[in-house]
Structures are given as C-alpha cells and as structure tokens.
C-alpha cells in the first residue's frame, strides 16, 4: 500500500478547501437568485436528486429521517438517520431502582407496552430466580397476546394507509379500541400500561373481564376475514407488495432480523416456540411462515399471527384458575451481582434485556435489544433500486416504532 507523504496530505487538504470554497460560492449564487435552468445542465443531463424523507413525513411512522438519493423516482441509496426520539432510556434504568424501570419500558415500543414490561420483568426475575405463580403466567401471556393483536392491528391499518388503502385502518382501529378498553379495565391505562411487576402482576383481573375478552376473541376471526377481503386477494394490493423488498432467510440471519420478517422469509423462528417462556410450551399454536420473503408474505404472516394469537388467548382463558398473582419477591429488590439476558417474542421480533447487576438495588447496566432498531438496519438494503412509493411500503412492512428505535 502506498504510504501517504506529508506533501500529499497537505495537497489533498488544499484541494479539499478549494473544493468547499467553490461549493460555498456556488451555493451562495444559487441562494441569491431564483434558480433558472443553468447553462451546465442540458435537458438530457441526468441528475441525482437528494430527497429528505422525514422526520416529519406522514409515512415514516414517527420521526424517522431518511436521506434518499434518487434518480427520478428510483432510489439509488437510502440512509436512515435515527435518534430524533432518543431519551436515554438505557441510562435512566441505571439511575433508578429495578421496579422503577418498568414504566420506562412502556415508552419504548409504545404500541406494545405489555411485551416491553414483560421482557424487562423477565430479565430481573432471571437475576432473582423467582418462581412466577401459574395464574400470573397465564395472565401475562393473555396480556402479551392482546398486545400482539393490537400492535399488528396498528401495523395493518397504517401500512394499508401508506399504500392508499384507507378503509382497513378504520376497521383495524375499531378492534384495537376494544383491546385498549380491556387494558384500561385491567390496569387503568390504555397505552403506557405498566401492567407487570417483578415477580408477577400488580392486579388481579376484574370480574367479567375474561368473558368480555372471550367474546371479543370469538368474534375476531370474522373481523380478520373482513380485512383480508379488502386486501389479500386485491389485485392492486398484490401488485404493490408481491416481490417488493425481497430478503432471503440467510440474509435475515446475517442482519439479525427477527420476527415476522424472518418468518416471512421461511425460517420458523419464534421465541415462544424456540425458547419458551412463561407457559407457552403448554399452548397449542402454529408459527406461520412463508417462503418468498417479500412484503406480501410478511403481510400474510402477520395476519396469520393475529389468528394464532386469538387461538392462544382462547386457550389461556380456558386454563385460567384462581390463584396467586405475585411470586415471593423481597420488598427491596437487590439481585446478586450477575449478568443475564432474557428475551421474548415481541410483536416486532426478539425483544431482549441484557442486565448487569452489581448487587445494589439499581442495575449497573441495562442494555436493550430492540427489534425495531435492528430490523430497521435492513431498510437501505431493501429499498435499493425500488421506487419512492415502494419505500413507503417497506417502512410499513418492517413495522418500526420510533420510540423503540431511538429509546
């Protein structure tokens, strides 16, 4: 390799300075006058355009910013710029006691707070080595699956709107409203639930709750049929999604993608089945997979998952028996100085907490493995060569929540 001499470096610096001076001059000239067709560019000169996509774009599902290089509408390069919603959640965990960390997790993936709570509690419980009573386990699974349904409903509605299908959104949100009502009845909150505690649950179920949920779940498959009627066999929907953003299972593994994206590419990997937590090993359900790994297959996988969630909820309701809802947890939580990793299958993929304890009542370090953030990494790879319209479909299909991406 050629060694760079000092002269060469200083020459390069000069060149660079001259280049930037010229750029600045050109920029000032452009700013002072109304841009008319300049002499350098003839009609047939192909120019790349830099397009700033977000952070205030309606289809980036929050404050994601993408810097696009486009040729006409074709995307040459997409660079995600994240961090607009960064609140330092991981650092906040270190400053507060273990139970005080749970509300912070609500604000990560804010359309699926219950699963966040669950993953956090699971990590701390693993440190403590507490046994969770069976009723609490079942109710946790119930809440998780209701949350998965509501998260998938939000995804279905918003990604439909992104592709111009407005009506499924209202249907999906009608059902989501009912789920939020169930949450409200259970813990008083609708979005930031704070519905789990280390060692169990804060409350027992209210009377009549299980009947209402059972009724809702019995009705759900016909509601899902309604959404499918509008989208699944719709010619335009298929044109917009089949073959868009194809990714193979091997690539998914290389990128660390999890959740419906991985399963849409054909790998049957679901932590509920692969590393069962709570009582998932006793429950009877199928992990839906599809082979093509495109946007359409990911759509089908998620819709199938909603049907399976309904099935899991039905089984949990049947198994529910009276009992304790909190395990034997000390009043002041001071786990032994250890390191653990606990993860669950959140609606978006593998959500994990890596917790380092130093024996005090506050975690020494709490690291989050957020599925949205890691899945988002694949966006530049997926978007390359597609049109701007497809980019919208791709952001939808990755199913990101910026609260979780930025934390």
């Amino acid at each position, binding site marked *: 390799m050629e060694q760079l001499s000092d002269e060469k470096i200083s020459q390069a610096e000069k060149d660079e300075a001259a280049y930037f001076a010229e750029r600045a001059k050109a920029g000032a000239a452009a700013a002072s006058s*109304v*841009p008319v067709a300049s002499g350098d560019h003839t009609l047939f000169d192909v120019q790349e*355009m830099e*397009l*700033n996509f977000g952070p205030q*774009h*309606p*289809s980036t599902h929050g404050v994601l910013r993408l810097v696009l290089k486009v040729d*006409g*509408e074709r995307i040459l390069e997409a660079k995600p710029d994240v961090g607009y919603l960064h609140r330092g959640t991981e650092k906040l965990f270190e400053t507060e006691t273990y139970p005080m960390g749970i509300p912070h997790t609500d604000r990560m993936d804010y359309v699926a707070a219950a699963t966040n709570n669950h993953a956090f509690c699971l990590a701390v419980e693993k440190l403590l080595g507490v046994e969770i009573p069976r009723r609490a386990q079942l109710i946790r699974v119930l809440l998780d699956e209701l949350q998965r349904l509501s998260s998938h409903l939000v995804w279905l509605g918003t990604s*439909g*709107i*992104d*592709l*111009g*299908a*407005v*009506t499924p*959104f*209202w*249907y999906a949100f*009608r059902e989501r409203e009912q789920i939020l009502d169930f949450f409200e009845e259970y813990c008083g909150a609708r979005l930031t639930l704070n519905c789990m505690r280390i060692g169990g649950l804060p409350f027992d179920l209210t009377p009549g709750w299980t009947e209402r949920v059972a009724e809702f779940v019995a009705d759900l*498959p016909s509601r899902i049929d309604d959404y499918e009627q*509008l*989208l*699944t*066999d*719709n010619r*335009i*929907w298929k*044109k*917009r999604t089949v073959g868009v953003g194809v990714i193979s299972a091997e690539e998914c593994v290389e990128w660390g993608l999890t959740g419906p994206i991985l399963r849409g590419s054909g790998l049957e990997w679901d932590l509920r089945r692969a590393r069962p937590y709570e009582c998932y090993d006793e429950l*009877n359900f*199928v992990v*839906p997979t*599809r082979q093509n790994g495109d946007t359409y297959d990911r759509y*089908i996988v998620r819709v*199938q998952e909603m*049907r*399976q969630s*309904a*099935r899991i909820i039905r*089984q949990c309701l049947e198994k529910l028996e009276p009992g304790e809802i909190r395990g034997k947890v000390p009043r002041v939580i001071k786990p032994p100085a250890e390191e653990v990793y606990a993860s669950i299958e959140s609606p978006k993929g593998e959500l994990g907490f890596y917790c380092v304890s130093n024996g005090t009542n506050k975690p020494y370090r709490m690291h989050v493995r957020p599925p949205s953030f890691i899945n988002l990494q694949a966006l530049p790879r997926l978007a390359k060569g597609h*049109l*701007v*319209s*497809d980019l*919208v479909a791709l952001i939808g299909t990755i199913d990101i929540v910026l609260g979780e991406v930025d934390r």
Partner: protein
Amino acid sequence: MRDAGYAMSAEVWTYVKVVLLVATVPAIVGFVIVLAERRIMGFMQARLGPNRVGPEGVLQGLADLLKLVTKEDITPARAEKAVHFLAPVLAVIPALTALAVIPFGPPVRIGKTMVPLWVADINIGLLFLLAITSIGVYGIILGGWSSNNKYSLLGGLRSAAQLVSYEVPMGLSLVSVLLMTRSLSLVEIVRRQEATGLWFVFPGLVAFFIYFVSGVAETNRNPFDLPEAESELVSGFNTEYSGVKFAFFFLGEYTAMIIISCVAVTVFFGGWLAPFPSVPALRFLGVVPGAIWFLAKVGVFIFGYIWFRSTFPRYRFDQLMALGWKWLIPLALANIVAVALAVLLFPGRTTGLVWLSWILGGFFVAMFALSKLRQALARRERLAAEPHPVEG
C-alpha cells in the same frame, strides 16, 4: 322583429345559464359532493363522518369554505411566483368552461321560449371537451413545478406522465362512440341514443370501461391519485398551497370529477333519457323530467368515485403507466376496429350495434365469471398451502 326578440332572449338566457353554472357548481361541489363523500366514506369505514356543523353536518361545506378563505395564503420564498399564482387558476377555469357544452336536459319551456338546458351546443362538443379539460392538467404540472419543493416536483412529474398518457385511451374510447353517432355534438349524441333506442354503453361497453378508468386517472382520484399521494409525496403538487389557492385546486379536482361523470352519462348512458327508452313497459319512467334523470345518473358516478376511494389501494407509478400503455391503449384500438366493423357490415347501423352489444355483453359476463373463478381458485390454493389451524 320577432327574430330579433327571440335572439335577444336567447342571449339573455345564455348569460343566465352561465351565471347559474358558475355559481352553482362550486356550491354543489362544496356542499353536496364533499359532504356526501365524507359521510359515505364514513359509513363505509365504520365511523360517522362530519355531523357537527348544522343538522347532520350539512353546513360542513360552509365551515370548510370559511376556514380555507380565512387561512393565510402562503407563497414559498423561492417559488416561481407568477406561475405559482397561475396554476390553481388553470386548474379551475378549464373545468368550469367545459361545463358549457354539457346538455343537462332536454329544452324546457319557460314562458314563451324554449330554453335548452345547455349553454352551447357546438358541433365539435366532444373535441372541445377533450381540448379544454387537457388544459387543466397544466395547472397541476405547473403547480408542482413552481412550488420549488422536491415532493411537489415529483408530484408534477407524475401528473405530467399520467395525465398525458391517459388522455390517449380516453380519446380513443370516445372515437368508437363517434363511429356510432357520426357527430361530435353532445346533444346530437343523446338524440342519436334516443333514436336508436339503445344506450351506447351496450355497444360501447369496452369503450365505457376504458373511458371511465382513464377518467378516474385524469382526475387524480383513487386508485390513481399518484400526483397527490398523501402518504408518499405529502400531497404532491399541492403541498405548498394554502388557503384560497388550495381551495381552487380542490374545486378543480371535484369539478373535473363532475365533468367526467357528465360526459360518461351523456355519451354512454343516454344523457337525460329515461332508462331503456325503447321498452314500452318502462315508458312511465318518462314522467320524471330529463334533468332529474341526468343528475341522478351523475350522482351514481360520483358515488362510484367515492366507492373506489374507500376500497382500493393506490397503484404504483410504473404499474399505472403499464396499465395505460400496455392494456388500455391496445384495447381501445381493438375496440375501434370492432365497432367500425359492426357499423360497416350492417348498413342499418342499429342492427350492427345491437349485435355488438350482445357479443360484448356476453364477453363481459364470461370475463367476469372467469376472473371470479380464478380469484376463488387462487384463494383456495393459498389457504390449502397454509394448513394453519385456527381452532382449538
């Protein structure tokens, strides 16, 4: 003396009609169509829609108008100001002008004069319509370009390609109707349908579908609303428009919708004629005035527009162009040949058209049944491939 009096009164009536059209159409757009659209979409989407302003929300249009008029009119600093101002005007004026040749009903007697319910019956009416509505396209292209916003520019580019391409199949589909009528006058087209006793939608079934699909694309409505594409281009060409200028674009779009529906009704659905004018058993339908029939038919089309909007996802740009160039244009050309043959081979013209109606109707029913069957088979295959139990 009598002639001069007649000429004068005709002229007066023309002015009256122009004023009436220009005054009522925006009002109809603002009050009736927009409210109908929002309420119907609300109904389809399991929600209520606007129902707060006035009883059942009927004054919503007034509230919207007030909001738009009192809003600040913003022109971006680096915009091409003159063009930015001109674009919304270009979107509205041609649309309103095109209304001049639409026959809303048969002539009615007012006092001693027969007043025709159209402003002008010019012998090149259809050509005039195509020409004048294509000017409206410039409003969108220039609006997108002059805003000096990249999203608007993309919207303008999309509309330039889309609207210009879809004018070709639209024009071609109307050519086949011309072969049947041998006249470009819209009034004459309706009269001809009255004489034949056959709405041209039957022999012109293919032409009608091409016309209506292109019409939806021309008016930037779902599923062809790419130049706006709220979720992709953040409203596209009208991103940088606010207040009255935005209202003008809005008015232009909805008036264009009315025009497309009016032309479809006039050319293919017998204009002001009652349904099936040749069937004696349905003669009693003639009791209802022609203008009412016309408006009712236009209403059905507007409802169709709304229905599309709440049902379909949006096409992608390249797919839209492929649909236009690879399907609609060849189909329209083939249709012209078919209609020309029917007109040529049967000298009586009407018999040929009746035969064509039967053939096309049968073909359509067969295609419809086939596509439904294919859809059902695909669905079964898909469900069979995924034996995911949902019970238990």
